[in-house]
């Protein structure tokens, strides 16, 4: 249930930004999670919707994008996007890799209406 803690932090950021921008309500929230974070979208939506009750972000629509895993091979520099979580460079077979995408927990933007 890391979804709960991540949702708590997310809601804290949304409310802080919305207040500083004088929004009267938040209508949309755009977030991106890397696949390695293993967020279950339905669980995340549930805890998010429970958490925003009674705040200016109640009824905000959550746009959740899962980013695929990408790595760069440290030997041949090839960049590869993977589906199957096999961390082996398809070009040279090396397992000396740097993860360049897949563990993000990003809030991109929010939309809302001004006071």
């Amino acid at each position, binding site marked *: 249930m*890391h979804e709960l803690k991540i949702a708590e932090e997310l809601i804290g950021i949304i409310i802080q*930004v919305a207040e500083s921008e004088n*929004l009267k309500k938040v209508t949309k929230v755009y977030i991106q999670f890397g696949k390695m974070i293993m967020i279950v979208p339905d669980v995340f939506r549930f805890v998010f919707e429970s958490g925003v009750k009674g705040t200016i972000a109640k009824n905000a629509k959550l746009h959740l994008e899962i980013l695929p895993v990408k790595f760069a091979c440290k030997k041949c520099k090839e960049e590869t996007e993977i589906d199957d979580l096999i961390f082996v460079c398809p070009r040279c077979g090396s397992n000396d890799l740097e993860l360049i995408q897949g*563990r*993000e927990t*990003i809030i*991109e933007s929010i*939309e809302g209406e001004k006071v």
Partner: protein
Amino acid sequence: MEIKIMKNVLDRNKNKANEVRALLMEKNVIMVNMISSPGAGKTTLLEKTLGHLKNKFKIAVIEGDIATDRDAQRLKNHGVPIVVINTEGGCHLDSHSISKVLPEFDLENLDVIFVENVGNLVCPSHFDLGETFKLAIVSTTEGDDKPIKYPMLFREAKVILLNKIDLIEYTNFNKPSFNKDLNNINGKVPLFEISCTKNTGMEKWFDWISKQISSK
């Protein structure tokens, strides 16, 4: 209207973890974040490791526990400083809870802090504590599919211990399959096969961890 934010949702945890890491580096202390399922053998591993290393290094322990101090009770005979963090239902430790308890230790007189995280393979691997490295423990009785089901932890761990190796013949644990999955996820990670209760394979682990502490 749209407001761009582009921020890591876990920034608060990450920033505090970086503060913890900087403090530990300044004091020349390493911190090991121990992660496993409940019952894989974290506390038994700590008991054996403290027994072996406590005369060689200055050690402290942070025990993450959902509600009790039972693990700490098991370790207290070793005479090393122990602090318990009760997460009160929380499924992982975070950097703020670590930062709060660090002042209880005399960091000037420590080499290593072992942090026993809450038993869970998912959540603890997503929250940086400011550790020097993560240690993953998996046991033969849990099944051989743990690396492929929980890739984040096995990708990020600096060392992996396969515990309860003495029980493997009573399980359907498929070692070639485990090794193949682990090799795909993290082909560079050292793996030690051990039995904490039977003292099998422990010397190699003690040597490895001793080297990490000595070369800090």
